[in-house]
């Protein structure tokens, strides 16, 4: 099982690492990280800008890259399915072969400029690590979501459309929707429902984790502000981190189930 999954992860990662996609993705974060460090002059500010950009870009790139890749490798996947291997191993291999190169691209791109500066300002190191961890978690979560979308949508164009829709909803429209709900039901005790809404969005969870670290609660958004009031301190961090991990585990599990049952 492990040998099979590792073999497939290896072959897929090799294909992706040689593709322009991952190179461009890594280059983007490299330029962004280097540019912000060089021109903002203040490492804390650079990290904050990097965090804001990562929260938008990572979900978009992971969704689009993974959806398109699953579609373009459809025939290859069918060839692999005809081999004497279990579907669960194949799925694990294909998923890891997508998530790992994407996460590596982000990590290398963001971290290299800091490493070249000897690790950067020690006081900001916690924030940098938080950014790298949250970015990796979001990559894993949205790669899994993209997998689910591509498995359930036969038509490629529609699949990419659905993925873009997921991104628009969670990354762009979400805070506005929450504020609308708050404005409509402001007379009721709605803090708990609002908290639930935050748990329902991995990007919000990532933002919360980063901004609590970066000491920039003004940028938390509505759900984050409510959350910070409810759970300040380490308990809140662990809760949000746990929820974010659940946002990886749940789509991965759903994708595995769909992959096992799918008719190719």
């Amino acid at each position, binding site marked *: 099982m492990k*040998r*099979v999954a590792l*073999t*497939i992860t290896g*072959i*897929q990662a*090799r*294909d*992706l690492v*040689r*593709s322009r996609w991952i190179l461009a993705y890594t280059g983007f974060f490299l330029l962004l990280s280097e540019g912000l460090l060089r021109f903002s002059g203040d490492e804390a500010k650079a990290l904050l800008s990097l965090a804001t950009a990562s929260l938008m870009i990572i979900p978009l790139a992971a969704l689009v890259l993974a959806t398109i890749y699953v579609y*373009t*490798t*459809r*025939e*290859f996947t*069918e*060839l*692999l*399915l*005809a*081999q*004497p*291997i*279990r579907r669960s191993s194949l799925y694990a291999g294909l998923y890891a072969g997508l998530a790992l190169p994407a996460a590596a691209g982000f990590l290398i791109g963001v971290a290299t400029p800091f490493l070249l500066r000897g690790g950067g300002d020690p006081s900001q190191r916690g924030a940098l690590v938080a950014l790298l961890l949250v970015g990796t978690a979001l990559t894993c979560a949205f790669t899994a979501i993209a997998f689910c979308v591509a498995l359930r949508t036969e038509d490629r164009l529609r699949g990419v459309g659905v993925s873009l829709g997921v991104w628009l909803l969670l990354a762009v429209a979400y805070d506005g929707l929450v504020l609308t709900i708050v404005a409509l039901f402001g007379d009721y005790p709605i803090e708990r429902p609002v908290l639930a809404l935050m748990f329902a969005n991995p990007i919000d969870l990532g933002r919360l984790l980063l901004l609590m670290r970066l000491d920039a609660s003004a940028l938390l958004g509505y759900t984050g502000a409510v959350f910070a009031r409810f759970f300040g301190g380490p308990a809140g961090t662990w809760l949000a981190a746990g929820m974010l991990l659940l946002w990886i585990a749940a789509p991965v599990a759903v994708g595995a189930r769909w992959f096992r*049952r799918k*008719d*190719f």
Partner: protein
Amino acid sequence: MIEFRGVTKRFGDAHVLRGVDLTIARGRVMGLVGPNGAGKTTLIKLLLGLAHPTGGDVRVDGVSILGDVAYRTRIGYMPQIARFPENLAAGELFRMLRTLRGVNAPMDDGLIDRLGLAEHLDKPLRVLSGGTRQKVNAALGLMFRPDVLVLDEPTAGLDPLSSATLKDEILRRNEAGATVLVTSHIMSELEDLCDEVAFLLDGSVRYAGPIGKLTEQTRQKNLERAIAALMIREVA
């Protein structure tokens, strides 16, 4: 031996297979013919485990393949479309399949040379011509000395010389004892390769047996005309 027993397959409201009974005896070459949408590809996918039947059973050498994985060590599959991850080299694909099928899997060492692929092993697949990629595709199916060979439109996109080489390889595998199931739109090709044909229409088998018997029955001079006669009769 490959057996389909009362196999049905529904995709939503579409009945793609409506009770297929078909037996391919060990060591025989069976051609699968029928118009587009008749269910040929679906039937192949069920044999490979790519899709699950709605009803009925599929057996290889008397053992049901449903829920099984190990039987695929004995199957070689050449899909219709040769699309591979484009930044990989053919050599990497061969090594990968080798690892997946177990290091002890029997290998046909001369195959790469006979198909003229040796010089292309290290190039990225994206720079290979369509014909060469199709040969890589064929090699992936034939490489591990399969007992059961499944080929979907094997000679599509091949020049006459490569096409002849591939047919030789298929027959060589068959002489070594492999049971072969092959689809094609080129009837003369099936006449070259096959002992028997199965004619599929609207999800069920309308004829299965020797080619000679079919041409005799329909009083036609070759397979193409015999199948055409069958289709006219079925539609009328």
